C-alpha cells in the first residue's frame, strides 16, 4: 500500500514560493511578462490535460489557448494567489466540459471513438506495443464521462490531491472520491474490452 505524499515526478519543479507569488501578483496587476512566465510554466501540462479531456490533440491546443485567455481576463478577480494551479485547472476543466457540450450540440451525430469497434488499422499500424497501449489508454479515457475523466486526469496526470480536485471542480470531497473510483472502474472495463478485442483479433489472424 504505497501512498505518496505527492508524486515527485508529477509536481512541477519546486520554485521559490515568494517569487512565484510575486509573479502571480504581477500577472494580476496586468504585467504581460509575468503572465508569460506563468504561461511557459503551465502550458505543456494544460495542453496535454485538455487534449486528453477532449480526445483530440488539435482541439486540446486550441482549448489551451482559450483557457489562458480566460485566465488572463479573470486574473484580476482571483483572490487566492497561493492556490493558483487549482484555480487554473478549474478554468481548464470548465473550458473542456463546455467544449464537449458545445460539440455535442453542434454536431449531434459526432461519435466519440467507439471503444467496442475501434478500427482495426490501429492494431495493425502500431507494431510497437507501447504505441498500441497509448492508443488504448486514449480511447479508454474517451469512453469515460467527462466528469470522471476530469477527476482521473487531475488525480493521476496533474497530480492533485482529492481535496484540491474538489476545490477546483467545485464538488465535495466525498463526491470527488466517488467520481475517481467510478472513473477507475469504468476505465478498467473499457481498457479490458479493448485488450480483449485486440486478443480476439490476433486469434482470428492466427487462424487464417
Amino acid at each position, binding site marked *: *500500500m*504505497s*501512498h*505518496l*505524499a*505527492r*508524486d515527485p*515526478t*508529477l509536481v512541477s519543479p519546486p520554485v521559490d514560493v515568494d517569487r512565484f507569488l510575486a509573479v502571480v501578483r504581477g500577472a494580476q496587476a*496586468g504585467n*504581460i511578462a509575468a*503572465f*508569460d512566465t506563468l*504561461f511557459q510554466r503551465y*502550458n*505543456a*501540462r*494544460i*495542453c*496535454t490535460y485538455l*487534449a*486528453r479531456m477532449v480526445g483530440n*490533440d488539435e482541439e*486540446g*491546443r486550441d482549448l*489551451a*489557448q482559450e483557457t*489562458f*485567455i480566460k485566465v*488572463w*481576463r479573470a486574473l*484580476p*478577480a482571483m483572490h487566492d494567489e497561493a492556490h493558483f494551479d487549482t484555480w487554473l485547472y478549474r478554468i481548464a476543466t470548465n473550458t473542456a466540459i463546455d467544449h464537449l457540450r458545445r460539440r455535442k450540440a453542434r454536431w449531434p451525430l459526432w461519435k466519440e471513438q467507439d471503444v467496442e469497434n475501434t478500427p482495426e488499422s490501429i492494431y495493425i499500424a502500431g507494431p510497437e506495443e507501447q504505441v498500441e*497501449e*497509448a492508443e488504448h*489508454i486514449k480511447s479508454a479515457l474517451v469512453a469515460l464521462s467527462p466528469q470522471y475523466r476530469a477527476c*482521473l*486526469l487531475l*488525480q*493521476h*496526470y496533474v*497530480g492533485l*490531491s*482529492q*481535496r484540491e480536485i474538489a476545490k477546483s471542480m467545485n464538488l465535495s470531497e466525498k463526491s470527488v*472520491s*466517488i467520481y*475517481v*473510483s467510478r*472513473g*477507475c*472502474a469504468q*476505465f*478498467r*472495463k473499457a*481498457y*479490458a*474490452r479493448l485488450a*480483449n478485442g485486440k486478443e480476439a483479433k490476433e486469434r482470428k489472424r492466427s487462424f487464417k
Partner: protein
Amino acid sequence: MKESFLVPCARWAEKLATKYQDDLPYYERLAIRNHLLSCTACAAAYAFYQEIGMKLSCLAEVEPLSSLPSHLLQREEHVFAFQRRSELASSYSRMWRQSIMEAESTSQELQSPASTKSPLPEAGLRGWKARSIAQYILRAPERFLHASLTHLPVKVRYVSAGNNALYALQSRNGTLLWQYQKSTVFFSSPAMKNGILYPNALDSQIFLFAASMRLRPCSDSFIWKR
C-alpha cells in the same frame, strides 16, 4: 458483456482509488492494507488502479503552442480595462462606508448630529457642500447603501439608503441636493428619466414623482401612485 474480472467490495471500492497521503487518513490506509491481503478481487483492482495511475502519469505530452499571440492579450487588456474601472467604481461605496465607520468610532463630532437633529437641510440647497457622498449617507451605521453607485456620466445621482431615504447627490463633488424620507424602504437605485423619478419601494407601492436637480419631491409632486 460479461466482465472478465472480479468486482471489488463495495465498501472498499472508493478507497482503493485514492492515491496520495492527503486523500486518506493513516488508519484507513492500514485497514486497506489488511483487507488487500485477504481479498483477491480488491487486490486485483488495486493493482490495476496503481497501473492506471502509472500509465496516466506518463501520458505522452502533446506538443504545445510555444506562445500566446501577444496581440490577443493586448486587445483583451484594452477591453477589460473598462471592466476593471467599473468594478472599481462599485467598490467605492464600500470603501467609503468603511472609512466613515472608522471615523465614527474615533470622533464623536460626526455621530451627534445624526441622532439629535438631522443636519441635512429640508429643501435642496445649493451651497451645502461636504467632503464626500459617504459623509452624508453613511453617518449612522444603520444607514447603508442598498445599491452600488453606478459608474455613469450623469450630473446627479439618485441613491437609496437603508434609512428609508432617497438622496440626490451631485456627482462632481458629492453635494447633497435633496433628500426624501418615506415610511417604506427603498431598494435599488431609482431610475430617472425626463424629470420623473421611478423609485422601487419595498412594500410594492408604485409611485412616480417629479424631481430634478433643483426640485425636491414633496407630496404635491406625486404624478401617479398605486
